[in-house]
């Protein structure tokens, strides 16, 4: 039956099945939320798609919280917006794996696959992928709408009209977003280099991971704050936002629709019907070819400024310092994984700050301690400890660790290379990060001097932490394969131990060190001596370890 239908539309059924199976296989091995390093995926993650869907489902349950808003138009506006952002970002970031990838052209263009078969398989997969994601994100709320009054009024009342409207809104909105993203992506690629766009999208991936993990904590706070404060009469400008066209369906089903709501719903249906044929015209093997040709043309002009980068580090005395600085700088510039690992601290810090400050206690000020705010600030100190741990891990492990052969065949001083790496991480990443935090502290402490004094102590403690991290396992820059299991364990231990140690330390500082200038200066001197002593110890330890170190490639 299916085979006959496919024959009728000129699609090779056997090839369609093979391509669908292939698409699911690829999606199950690497998707947005579970994007794995090559080393990890070699071990065989085969359920990445299902894991993503499971995370979306949990997120979908978090969205049910919006049902506490009495008006279905407003509650669905929030829910559909969240789903729209998730699906839109997913489509943009995963365009290559879900829709059309330049790699497809290299492999499929020499196989006897017609453009129509390729197109139908890609389209079918996109529809299934979007539907599954939308179902995971939206079905909990859609079912919730069926029982909305029951939830609010604590009486049993099934509302089929609201349920059907919510389902229709979810389907139309998620497909409209997906198709609009296909159009946007293909349009942007006419003007922007494919590789540059992929790099830009990796930032979006960072923001999205932050949204998903942060959403669990942030949404309840947002719902708490906005729950009852929304107007019954909708302002005109709200209908300029496309998502409101689909929320209007719920407004109609609820029996509270005015003329504007009905017109908006009509516009939504029209837009949905119009955007699909436009987007599907973009999915073809021919398009994969143009992506691929564009990519080859761009490869020639990729790295033009390496000479400039060389001169930035010429002032450094030791060649090993220059090598490491140049390497770190270029990896940060061109290796998206390394860059994201470093920049991942920004959303984490922002989230922890938000969580800490949302209770209104302010940041814990060790110079004028308020013990109520201490618990709230614990998360920020987790971020401060997490950062050196994260960057040490990312700067020693890499997908291109095989390139580290150069350290083993050159007469470079390996001990010096490791020490230079530690130094580079401290100067280029940790200190700037703590300086930014110092500015935030100065706002909450209401004293620039106190903020600066606290930042100095944190710099010394972070330096000690970096030394401690290098002590048991000194490694050359980007010289070991990534192992995600190991990383998660390390981060897990850090998250548990860090607040206890560091917050305990900050309490001690608060009670005994920050009380007067004398004790503060003594503490700084003691910490500086500890850093100096650790450096000596580290140097000896690294020298011993480097005699035995072997190339892992």
């Amino acid at each position: 039956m299916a085979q006959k239908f496919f024959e009728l539309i000129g699609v090779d059924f056997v090839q369609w099945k093979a391509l669908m199976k292939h698409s699911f296989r690829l999606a199950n091995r690497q998707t947005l939320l579970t994007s794995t390093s090559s080393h990890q995926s070699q071990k065989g993650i085969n359920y990445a798609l299902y894991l993503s869907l499971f995370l979306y489902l949990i997120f979908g349950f978090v969205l049910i919280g919006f049902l506490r808003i009495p008006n279905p138009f407003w509650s669905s506006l929030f829910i559909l917006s969240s789903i729209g952002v998730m699906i839109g970002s997913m489509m943009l970031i995963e365009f290559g794996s879900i829709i059309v990838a330049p790699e497809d052209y290299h492999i499929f263009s020499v196989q006897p696959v017609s453009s129509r078969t390729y197109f139908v398989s890609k389209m079918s997969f996109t529809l299934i992928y979007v539907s599954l994601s939308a179902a995971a994100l939206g079905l909990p709320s859609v079912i919730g709408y069926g029982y909305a009054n029951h939830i609010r009024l604590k009486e049993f009342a099934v509302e089929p009209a609201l349920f059907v409207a919510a389902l229709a809104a979810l389907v139309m909105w998620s497909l409209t977003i997906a198709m609009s993203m296909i159009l946007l992506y293909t349009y942007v690629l006419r003007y922007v280099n494919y590789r540059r766009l992929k790099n830009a999208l990796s930032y979006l991936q960072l923001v999205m991971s932050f949204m998903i993990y942060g959403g669990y904590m942030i949404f309840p706070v947002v719902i708490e704050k906005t729950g009852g404060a929304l107007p019954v009469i909708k302002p005109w400008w709200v209908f300029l936002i496309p998502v409101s066209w689909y929320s209007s369906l719920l407004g109609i089903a609820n029996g509270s629709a005015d003329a504007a709501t009905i017109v908006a719903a009509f516009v939504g249906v029209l837009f949905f019907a119009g955007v699909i044929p436009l987007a599907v015209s973009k999915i073809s093997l021919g398009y994969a070819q143009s992506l691929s040709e564009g990519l080859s043309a761009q490869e020639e002009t990729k790295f033009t400024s390496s000479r400039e980068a060389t001169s930035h580090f010429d002032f450094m005395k030791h060649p090993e310092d220059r090598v490491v600085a140049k390497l770190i700088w270029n990896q940060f510039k061109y290796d998206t994984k390394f860059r994201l690992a470093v920049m991942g601290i920004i959303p984490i810090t922002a989230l922890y700050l938000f969580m800490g400050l949302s209770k209104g206690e302010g940041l814990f000020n060790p110079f004028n301690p308020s013990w109520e705010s201490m618990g709230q600030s614990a998360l920020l100190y987790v971020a401060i400890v997490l950062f050196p741990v994260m960057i040490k891990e990312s700067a020693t492990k890499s997908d291109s660790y095989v390139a580290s052969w150069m350290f083993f065949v050159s007469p470079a001083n390996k001990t010096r290379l490791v020490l230079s790496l530690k130094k580079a991480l401290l100067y280029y990443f940790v200190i700037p990060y703590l300086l930014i935090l110092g500015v935030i502290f100065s706002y909450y402490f209401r004293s620039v001097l106190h903020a600066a004094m606290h930042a100095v102590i944190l710099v010394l403690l972070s330096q000690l932490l970096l030394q401690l991290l290098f002590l048991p396992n000194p490694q050359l820059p980007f010289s070991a394969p990534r192992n995600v299991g190991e990383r998660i364990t390390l981060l897990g231990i850090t998250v548990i131990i860090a607040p206890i140690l560091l917050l305990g330390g900050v309490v001690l500082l608060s009670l005994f060190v920050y009380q007067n200038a004398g004790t503060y200066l003594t503490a700084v001197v003691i910490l500086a001596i500890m850093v100096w002593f650790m450096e000596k110890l580290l140097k000896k330890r690294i020298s011993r370890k480097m005699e035995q170190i072997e190339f892992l490639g």
Partner: protein
Amino acid sequence: MIQTFALKKQYDTKEAVKELSLTVREGEIFGFLGPNGAGKSTTVKMLTGMIFPTNGTATVAGFDILKDPVEVKRRIGYVPESGALFETLTGWEYLQLIADLHHLERAMASKRIEEFLTLFGLWEEKGMRLQQYSKGMKQKILISAALIHNPPVLFLDEPLNGLDANAALVFKELLKKFSQQNKTIFFTSHILDVVEKICTRIAIINEGAIIAEGTSADIAHSTGQKSLEEAFSKLTGVRDARESAQDFLEALGS
């Protein structure tokens, strides 16, 4: 088996291939040589239907590459120089995908995959993802994928890349046997020794145009050189190899 008629490919102002006309007969191992950027890969891409010619046309296995591209692709096997593979798939899965795209019956496909993997010494690694394979192992998968549907025409772009000596030896013998079975092989390589040994006829392309054609002996003779290597250098070399080497030595001494 392969015929091109004034085949041309133009990128903006650059003519990558200039009105190329050539014929490769059934059972021939045709060596297609040229320096980097001469137009070899562009020609192969046009003949395999990866890109469209700007002008002219060609037939492969009796089908026009523009009018019947899918029919052409059913009858060709291609080993690309780029080595592009879906690296998150295992070796077995990749070959199964290609077999499905060629409508190979499941049992037959599994049997062939098993045989290829065993012959290439990859049976133990069949469940490993391709990203974990070495360069040579990936090349063996690419060769297996090109052969799995037993095509009458093979396009091989640097097929010996990364192969170990034993695998290369087996592969070269295999090409000779294919030729005896009347399969047509379009062979592109920079390794002139190999081309000289296995190709029955050779064409040299430079700046998008064929500059010499014939057996390796014919080409050497026509240029007044002793070997194909020397003839190639004379026909395509911008500078004398000895002079270039001397300049390198002088640069090291400065």
